[in-house]
């Protein structure tokens, strides 16, 4: 026992030290956020040089801030399950479903031309009903994920199909429109030059960031993402944490639904379907690890700006929006390739150092882990 310790004591501790350092940098997301910021600055600079009179203006900035919130809220709704090692394919269906419920209350139940107190009561009733529906969806999804024990992709594929099916069945594929001015004002008005919806998004992003990094629940969400079984054996009720993950995700969908209703002045079962995969793209671009356990909302926030800068820049240059979408995909592949090269580099560094020390095959080996 002591002989073993002696033989491997110093080198092994150095080896783990290096690994620890790697894990800390990965966890803090430092290099990742810096890299994303650099990318954002390069892209903004590029478009500013190309269009010095059009791009770097307050108007463009405002337009971008108006576009980000809905996709941003949905991306956070995707990022939280991703960090827990899962995925929520039902976010768009949930948002549309609760949007339709709120729209039905506002257009079908509320007496037309309601004003004053009646309007306030009906509006709050609609919002509370939508929120309650989303919380219910979250609880059911979380329980299914925790108890069935199959991958969340499968569970949420099922809930997505079911919720979307219910929306289609109840509306017969129609859309509902015509909402109170208050709802429309939230999504379209500005306060001190900044769109109100962007304020909402920013506040939510800060809250979720704090929740994930500072609270007990947040740490447990990360732990589950790293190793669910180990977390369970360390005495954490993984079931409760999973339910929280999907409740948070669904509540964010509700917020997105409220903003979407205001922006479009209508609600439907098939709105924004194309956002589903883009939210995953944004989250991964923002440094969320697809295997779970790692990810920062700050990175996601910058990633959303990168995507929006590309979209707005292409739009101002009169380049097809389809090419913007294509370049979003290419940017993600590019960032993943850079990370891969960086991972190979840092792991061979560790390998070389420990090899010099202990003259044996390094623990981390030539085959780097899939952890990026």
């Amino acid at each position: 026992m002591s002989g073993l310790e002696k033989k491997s004591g110093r080198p092994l501790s150095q080896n783990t030290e290096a690994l620890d350092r790697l894990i800390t940098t990965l966890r803090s997301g430092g290099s990742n956020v810096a890299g994303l910021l650099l990318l954002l600055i390069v892209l903004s600079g590029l478009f500013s040089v190309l269009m010095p009179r059009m791009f770097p203006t307050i108007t463009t900035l405002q337009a971008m801030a108006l576009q980000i919130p809905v996709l941003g809220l949905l991306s956070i709704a995707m990022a939280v399950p991703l960090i827990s090692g899962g995925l929520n394919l039902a976010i768009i269906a949930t948002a549309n479903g609760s949007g339709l419920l709120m729209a039905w209350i506002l257009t079908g139940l509320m007496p037309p031309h309601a004003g004053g107190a009646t309007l306030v009561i009906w509006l709050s009733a609609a919002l509370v009903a939508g929120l309650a529906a989303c919380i219910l969806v979250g609880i059911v999804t979380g329980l299914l994920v925790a108890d069935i024990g199959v991958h969340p992709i499968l569970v949420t594929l099922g809930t997505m199909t079911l919720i979307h099916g219910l929306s289609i069945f109840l509306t017969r594929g129609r859309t509902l429109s015509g909402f109170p001015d208050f709802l429309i004002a939230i999504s379209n008005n500005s306060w001190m030059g900044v769109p109100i919806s962007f304020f909402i998004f920013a506040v939510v992003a800060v809250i979720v960031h704090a929740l994930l990094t500072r609270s007990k629940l947040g740490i447990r969400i990360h732990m589950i993402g790293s190793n669910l079984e180990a977390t369970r054996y360390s005495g954490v009720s993984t079931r409760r944490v999973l339910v929280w993950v999907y409740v948070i995700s669904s509540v964010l969908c509700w917020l997105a639904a409220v903003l979407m209703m205001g922006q479009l002045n209508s609600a439907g079962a098939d709105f924004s379907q194309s956002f589903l995969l883009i939210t995953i793209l944004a989250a991964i671009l923002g440094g969320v690890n697809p295997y779970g356990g790692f990810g920062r909302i700050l990175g996601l926030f910058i990633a959303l700006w990168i995507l929006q800068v590309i979209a707005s820049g292409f739009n101002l240059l009169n380049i097809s929006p389809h090419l913007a979408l294509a370049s979003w995909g290419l940017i993600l592949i590019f960032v993943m390739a850079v990370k891969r090269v960086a991972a190979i580099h840092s792991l061979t560094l560790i390998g070389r150092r420990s090899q010099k020390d202990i003259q044996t095959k390094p623990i981390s080996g030539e085959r780097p882990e899939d952890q990026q």
Partner: protein
Amino acid sequence: MPRLFETLFGKTESALGVATVVICIVFSLSTPYFLTVSNVVNLVQAYSVTTILAAGAFVVLVCGGIDISFTATASAAQYLAASLLTHYGFSAVPALALAAALGISLGCINALLTHYLRVLSIIVTIATSSVYYALLVYITNAQEIYNLPDWWSNKFTFIKYVSPNGDVARITLPIVIMIAVVLLTQYIMGRAKIGRQIYAFGGNPEAAERIGIGVLKVQLFAYGYLGFLASVAGYVQAARVHQAVPTAMAGQELNVLAVAILGGASLVGGVGTVGGVVLAVMFLAVLQDGLNLLGVSSYFFGVVTGLAILVSISMTGYAEKLARRRYTTGTQS
């Protein structure tokens, strides 16, 4: 009692088979229009594209990956073939061969990126599908091609059957191609060496590499085969609707994946049979058609599909839990 549940539900294929037979009997008894030759043939024809795509998606699932770019690939291959034929005066064989080559290469790009970037294939294919799809719509301007050549859009009839009451049933090209695809996939996954290697790699990539399986080769084959089947599906889809539309198949990828998973393919890889996938398509097809004939609104079908997926994965999850418990405690009850 748990044993009974396991024998009943443990194997997805048998559960699906039983469920399909049961609903077939129920529908045949409740409506005279269900079990007619023409209805069955039409049903098979309507689901030919889904079956072909699901067979390809299944191979990638067995390989341990998830590809969601195949509808973009199918649309791209379909459009390439259609424009080569109508605008550039190609004859049938080279046009279709080029379309198949495009499908295979797009699939191989996915395999190469997945292999070298070491990222989950679902992430890679989300990126590539937005690239493929956006480029396709940009290049084609989302314009349809209507004037497909006769041999493509005209329905080849292999067998024509007229029932006593005058219903006509035609075995057409989509059905024949679908059957060929299913048999080919069954041969590859059940008999050929590469198929066994795909199962091995999907079950345990590390072990597969150590026993000398060419890891990159296996992935190239699986994703390339899906790309090839996507081009076939693109061809069949255009034959059914008589036109090539770049956006026709957008958004179908998750539905097709749901079918493959319902059929027993696991996301972890290494599990599943072609028969299961075919049964899953049959189950959903029969369910939708029967409900239609019974006068249930077709709007209700999404609810049914969602419930079917949730029930199916619950049963698989329950069976796995039982198996695990028996394995860990060693009880023989």
